[in-house]
């Protein structure tokens, strides 16, 4: 039966304790998103696509918890999370506006075995991300690059505007290297000379991106729930196997 995969040593970890995490550095990605570089003593390592649960505790004991995808590649010396600040959010405004290097919180992870890609897989990989859904997909692309994998990899990213695209320079490097990177902007005016798409993702865009279903790619779709459901539906409509379309929904806004 499909679906009994547990990653080697990582997935075998039976306990998932809450660990102390301290912010070592903060790197702005966009006007509203930041990458937090974390020190987590005892961090067991992770696979590309996994996430962590982050828990904040206030002085009076009040707690709030949210999940964030790991941005850094497996085996990287630092654990990195890229967090988009959601207006009126409970946790993300603290992480993106208030927290400073030296501050900390607790996290639990790595979590996930379904929305995971490993470079040992040799089928083509198709990545479709909406907004901050790019984060786990980037961990996958970073993993691919670091392992020297030459597997056919294609990325379609949907973002509101060019300013909202995380990791722009790195995406350009990957595009120049060996990854088919396409971006579609869905809101407002595209920048002058824009050669990407400028509309919500649709069937044609996905068909054009490929690879064709006959090549049996493994697809990873991540972002806000409506985006993921639409993209996954389109991929299945195009003929991709549902069991090979892995989805991760962030909810209405992904806070």
């Amino acid at each position, binding site marked *: 039966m499909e679906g009994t995969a547990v990653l080697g040593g990582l997935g075998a970890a039976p306990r998932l304790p809450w660990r102390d995490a301290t912010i070592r550095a903060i790197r702005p990605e966009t006007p509203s998103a930041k990458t937090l570089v974390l020190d987590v003593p005892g961090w067991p390592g992770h696979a590309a696509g996994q996430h962590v649960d982050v*828990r*904040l*505790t*206030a002085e009076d004991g*009040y707690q709030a918890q949210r999940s964030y995808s790991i941005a850094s590649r497996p085996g990287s010396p630092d654990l990195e999370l890229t967090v988009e600040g959601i207006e009126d959010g409970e946790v993300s405004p603290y992480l993106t506006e208030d*927290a400073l290097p030296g501050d900390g*919180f607790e996290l639990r992870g790595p979590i996930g075995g379904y929305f995971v890609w490993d470079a040992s897989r040799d089928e083509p990989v198709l990545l479709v991300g909406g907004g901050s859904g790019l984060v786990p997909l980037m961990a996958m692309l970073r993993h691919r690059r670091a392992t020297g994998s030459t597997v056919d990899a294609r990325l379609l990213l949907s973002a509101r505007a060019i300013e909202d695209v995380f990791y722009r320079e790195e995406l350009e490097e990957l595009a120049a290297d060996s990854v088919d990177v396409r971006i579609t902007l869905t809101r407002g005016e595209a920048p002058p000379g824009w050669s990407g798409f400028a509309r919500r993702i649709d069937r044609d865009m996905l068909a054009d991106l490929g690879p064709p279903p006959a090549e049996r790619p493994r697809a990873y779709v991540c972002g806000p729930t409506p985006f993921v459901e639409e993209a996954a539906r389109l991929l299945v409509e195009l003929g991709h196997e549902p069991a090979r379309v892995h989805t991760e929904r962030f909810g209405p806004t992904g806070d």
Partner: protein
Amino acid sequence: MARISRGFRGRRRGAGEPGRLPPGQYITPDFPVLSAGPTPHPPLQGWSFTIGGAVGEGRSWSWEELLALPAEIVTKDIHCVTKWSKFDTTWKGVSVDTLLEGTEPWGEYVVAWCDGGYTTNLPLADVTGGKAWVAYEYDGEPLDPEHGGPARLLVPHLYFWKSAKWVRGLNLTAEDEPGFWENYGYHNYGDPWKEQRYWGD
């Protein structure tokens, strides 16, 4: 004790007048949407609300008939078991007392049943005497589907999972019959002032 995140407060607000906020609750400026399943969208054409079960002769109202019943506008504080409370929420609806008028209930308990299959149980005494409504407006507007529209049960003196969304009827029962969350670890009665969140509280 968990590591404190310096300066973290979250979105909660102050506690209001002393004694107004039940123990363990926080005031939220939002109206969080919680549910056990997808939002149903029953056509109002065939919609009905039914009082049945241990009540002698049951009765049923169409949507138009429900809206034609004498309604009340009430302002209440509401308290969710997930710890958020919201003060001064305004609702329009029909009192359950009005719906039970003229019936002869011989069951002492009630199961509220809903589109989507959700159920919750309450003592009849907790939905009568001006304590409960079938509400179809919130804050002066038709009740949003995500918040339970077209109509939800409103029982503000208990934790809000008892205020069943998408309610279609009340079934009176002779025995207490635990509903959805009551079967999964949540307190059978749910008094926020006694912090009755879970079994055994």
